[in-house]
């Protein structure tokens, strides 16, 4: 049995509006990069694969088998992990469990989404059904509307401003220009963010992330094997996963995501670390308000102080806790099933000191916060070099 599990290889495609290739080819790109990154590893060393994707975007039914075949991973076991936007974090937890149980030694976790396969109307219709289809979708609820309702409640309760929300986008756009794999390569000024059109009040165009195509891959290995594969394993120190009511009517608070608080608590406990110990973090900024809530839910600041944290540029490189220095979902793009794996890749590169222009000096401990749906599933994973 392996007591420790490491990430030994990471890969990611560019995140784009429309990739122009099939899902099997998209996954191959990320897989190839992860295998080359791991170095001393061949396809036959992979004991199992977990394919992570949100349902109803693909024409291909049961894509896991098809993708495993295309990557040359048959006849090893493969299956699909699904938790909408948190799919590849959940896949990572499953891979970790496989290795800890002794069932497998080396596991590939591949996340992907090709959102351009649907028309915009089809995509909207699926987003709509991401809420409770019995009691919320019939009124025209949609992802941005839910987060707008969280934003309104947060602003009312804590005095958070539209300017503070816009500052999250300004930060993400700055760092996405330093990430060649990010979808948006242009800096957005505070004025431009603040004057963009209102999508659903108080959220504006630049408060929202965009649909994207992309794939991510990580190779996980047990301690004995990991040390033979690489000199720079990045260890999974603690995992947390939680769920919450899908319907807003079942939530006690609307200005926080309870699943993130619970997942964070589990991860900190298992890693025996505190929020202060985190050197660099990736959080699920599907909307600007989501990043502000994440600061608070993860304990990077006191409840209600999230707006002040971005005001003080404390989440920039050089600040107290750099967050989303790869551009985040807001500017890197959000191909649902690939997002968690992309966040993990960013943290792994940071902890290895290979993050280039966005390297946080001396980063030893990193955190990934990945949310599924409207705060339905929350995953927090802590890594250490």
């Amino acid at each position: 049995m392996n007591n420790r599990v490491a990430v030994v290889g990471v890969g990611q495609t560019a995140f784009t509006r429309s990739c122009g290739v099939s899902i099997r080819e998209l996954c191959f790109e990320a897989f190839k990069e992860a295998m080359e990154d791991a170095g001393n590893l061949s396809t036959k060393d992979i004991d199992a694969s977990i394919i992570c994707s949100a349902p109803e975007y693909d024409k291909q039914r049961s894509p896991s088998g098809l993708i495993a075949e295309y990557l040359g991973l048959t006849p090893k076991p493969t299956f699909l992990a699904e938790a909408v936007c948190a799919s590849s974090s959940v896949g990572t937890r499953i891979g970790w469990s496989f290795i800890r149980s002794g069932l497998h030694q080396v596991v590939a976790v591949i996340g992907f989404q090709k959102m351009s396969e649907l028309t915009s109307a089809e995509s909207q219709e699926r987003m709509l059904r991401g809420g409770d289809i019995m009691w919320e979708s019939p009124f025209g609820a949609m992802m941005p509307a839910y987060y707008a309702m969280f934003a309104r409640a947060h602003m009312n309760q804590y005095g958070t401003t539209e300017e503070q929300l816009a500052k999250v986008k300004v930060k993400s756009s700055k760092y996405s220009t330093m990430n060649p794999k990010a979808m948006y390569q242009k800096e957005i000024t505070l004025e431009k963010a603040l004057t963009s059109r209102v999508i659903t009040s108080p959220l504006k165009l630049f408060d929202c992330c965009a649909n994207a195509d992309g794939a991510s891959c990580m190779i996980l290995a047990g301690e004995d094997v990991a040390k033979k594969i690489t000199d720079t394993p990045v260890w999974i120190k603690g995992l947390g996963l939680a769920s919450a009511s899908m319907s807003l009517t079942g939530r006690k608070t609307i200005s926080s995501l309870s699943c993130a608080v619970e997942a964070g608590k589990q991860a900190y406990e298992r890693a025996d670390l505190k929020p202060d110990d985190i050197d660099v973090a990736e959080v699920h900024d599907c909307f600007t308000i989501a990043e502000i809530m994440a600061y608070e839910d993860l304990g990077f600041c006191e409840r209600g102080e999230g707006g002040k944290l971005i005001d003080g540029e404390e989440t920039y490189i050089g600040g107290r806790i750099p967050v989303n220095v790869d551009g985040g979902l807001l500017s890197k793009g959000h191909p649902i099933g690939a997002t968690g794996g992309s966040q993990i890749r960013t943290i792994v590169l940071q902890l290895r000191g290979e993050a280039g222009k966005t390297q946080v000096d001396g980063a030893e401990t990193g955190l990934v916060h990945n949310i599924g749906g409207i705060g339905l599933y929350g995953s927090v994973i802590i890594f250490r070099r």
Partner: protein
Amino acid sequence: MGFGKFGEISYIAETKIADFVKHLEEGEIAATKCKACGRLYFPPRVDCIDCLSSDVEWIPLSGRGKLITYTTANFAPAGFEAPYTLALAELEEGVRVFTRMSKDVKQDEIELGMNVKLVPVRLDDERITYELKKA
């Protein structure tokens, strides 16, 4: 048509709480109450989380409540027509409702914490829904 006529567009027609729509047509917003343990459910459901009983009775709600949060959508998913305001309110019985704010309520009148009233509203094509009005 049963529950299939509830809301602007419905995605589900078959449910054990289809009678909710009958109550709505009679002008009543009804919750369910577990006959075994007394827990009140809104949105209504027949299956009790606490005692696993599926024996419930219908209890009319006053509809009076306070606004918790809202958003006015300028873009709508396929099949809906923007703009419209979505709102979450807490009713005086301690349960919450997610629905639309009536178009009668002007934007500058909407304030978190304001008193609201949940009322049944008939739509075209024999559809029925509920919405929040200013109380």
